[in-house]
């Protein structure tokens, strides 16, 4: 198993990103901008400051990994970026759109159009086929059945699992299931793909295969990907590593 507390980027080849270089929120080359983002959880045990004044931008086509000790706020950050939850303060811009200025129903549409989610535990609907899982975001967007099918099949082919289209996810290996989930995250051609420990439920070899697939997506297909991981080796193989500690960015390095 991975040791969570030893995660974090190695420093040798590190180079700190200059904030001012990527400051323009609505620039065409910026996929994501996070501005003064804070999240405070109000629980019975008292207030938990999960994120404190987070600022960073991600360029289109960039493959960013987020690392940090357990409980440092990585998932919280990813959930805010993915508009699953509203922040206490601050803004998130995706393709220049200030998503939290929108109504809940519009945010749902944004999630559908602009964001692709890859979950640690795949979150596939097991009673139905791979194809139906993959096309679900298209179906939600109201796309016609024939176009949704066509798109889903194209992505399944690109990811090398087209032969599994009519199978049920439960009959696939973990690695194959995560590939199905990756296919689902891509089907609506999102601005960013978010992955919270996508290899966390997989063995090392399969995890590396899935990671290689994400890398291919990034390099060959110019996808913007933000991935939370506990694996320092994987983190180093991404374009850029952001280290979070106690809800703050402690380090932001280009690998």
């Amino acid at each position, binding site marked *: 198993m991975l040791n969570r507390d030893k995660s974090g980027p190695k420093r040798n080849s590190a180079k700190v990103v200059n904030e001012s270089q990527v400051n323009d929120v609505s620039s065409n080359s910026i996929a994501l901008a996070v501005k003064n983002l804070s999240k405070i959880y109000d629980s019975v045990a008292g207030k938990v400051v999960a994120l404190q004044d987070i600022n960073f931008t991600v360029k289109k086509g960039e493959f960013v990994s987020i690392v940090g000790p357990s409980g440092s706020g990585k*998932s919280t950050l990813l*959930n805010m970026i*993915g508009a*699953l*939850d509203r922040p206490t303060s601050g803004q998130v811009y995706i393709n220049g759109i200030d998503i939290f200025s929108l109504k*809940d*129903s519009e945010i*749902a*549409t*944004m*999630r*559908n*159009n602009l*964001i692709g*989610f890859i*979950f640690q*535990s795949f*979150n596939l*609907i097991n*009673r*139905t086929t791979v194809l139906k899982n993959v096309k*679900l*975001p298209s*179906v*939600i*967007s*109201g796309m016609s*059945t024939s176009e949704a099918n066509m798109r889903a099949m194209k992505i399944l082919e690109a990811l090398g699992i087209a032969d599994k289209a009519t199978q049920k996810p439960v009959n696939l290996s973990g690695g194959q299931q995560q590939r199905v989930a990756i296919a*689902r995250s891509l089907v*609506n051609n999102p601005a960013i793909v978010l992955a*919270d420990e996508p290899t966390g439920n997989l063995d090392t070899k399969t995890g590396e295969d899935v990671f290689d697939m994400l890398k291919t997506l990034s390099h060959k297909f110019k996808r913007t990907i933000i991935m939370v991981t506990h694996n320092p080796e994987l983190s180093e193989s991404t374009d850029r590593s952001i280290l979070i500690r106690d809800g703050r960015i402690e380090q932001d390095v280009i690998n």
Partner: protein
Amino acid sequence: MNPNDIFGLAYDALVDRKVRTILTVLMVVLGASLVVVINGLSAGQSAFLQQQFSSLATNVITATSGQRSYYGGGSSQASLIINDIIVNKIKALPFVSDVVPQYTGSVTIDSYGNVQRISVTGMNPTKLTVQLPNLEFVDGSTLEPNDRSAAVVGDTIANPAGATTPFVTVGQTLKITYSYSDPAGKQEQEVRNFLVTAIMKPSGNTRIDNSLVINPDAANQLLRKSGRYDSLLVQTIDDSYVNTVQDEITSLYGKNIGTNTPQATLKVRQQATSGNAAFVEMIGIIALVVGAVGIVTTLYNSVTERIREIGTMKAIGAQNSSILALFLVEAALIGIMGATLGVTIGIISGYAMTGLSSQQGSGGPGFNISSFPPIFLPQDLIKVWFLSVLLAIGAGIFPAWKASKLSPMVALRRE
């Protein structure tokens, strides 16, 4: 999301939980079929009653002494003795065209060793048409009002249900036995032979079909009536005088003579029937509501079990309204399946129940709710169908609302 896609997802979810779906559908089936059966049977009974009374003349009042006892009999403590004096008095009332006195008693009849226990009426057989204007007799019948040993037999007695050979035919002898206890309390029997001179064709009225009519003088003697009639048929010149004559009789004798009309009896019986039906229908509706509670439970469990799936759908952009619609459609599908099956099963079991009870049927005049062919009115069936479906959708509202309000964060919950 397109309605088609929501429908498909809902259908898949129901198929995935087959057993539970079937059980929930069955609850709706139970309620819907119960309501359909009750409606069908009571409509059938109501129509039967209507038809029974439609063959009876509307200008005839039945008068009995005091609170009438159903089976008559000489030993009843009548508060007023109805004899020829009273018959003549009533006959003299304005608007009365005829009065037919009747003796009734319970006897056993014996034809070649076959025995039936029946109700016998002593009256002038030519006056049968006073009450049943359209009454006809089988070929070879003759009415002999003055023949003290002549008997007229009702259709059901002559041709019992299910029997291959008739009980009696015209020209045959019938032995009639009247059993009674003498003033000392000793059991006695009076036995006499009668000749069947006429057999009625089916009259449309079960009570008449089950009756045997003999000469009044013979009945007076056989049933030991000493000239006390059990009832009078009072014919008015026109049915518009029925109430007037009824009032007239009441003002003469007060509560000592009870009067009744077929219309009043029909009304009372129909009220009793529909009262019963309303009660049993209530049970059916309760069953439907229980079914609805079942739907609430099933769907609520389903929401809890599918919390991650719902979260995932929301995380990938499903609107609250789509999730709401998804679960409402699941409820509606359960309702539609349950209602359709329930209505079908209700119709089938309605016929099955009446078929069954007429097979074992005594053929007697008892007003058992299931002894008449059911009538299923389309508007009743449609009403039950929609009620079931609406209840099911109503039951789905809470779980569906609950599901729609779930946070997309639940998709990230660790198992």
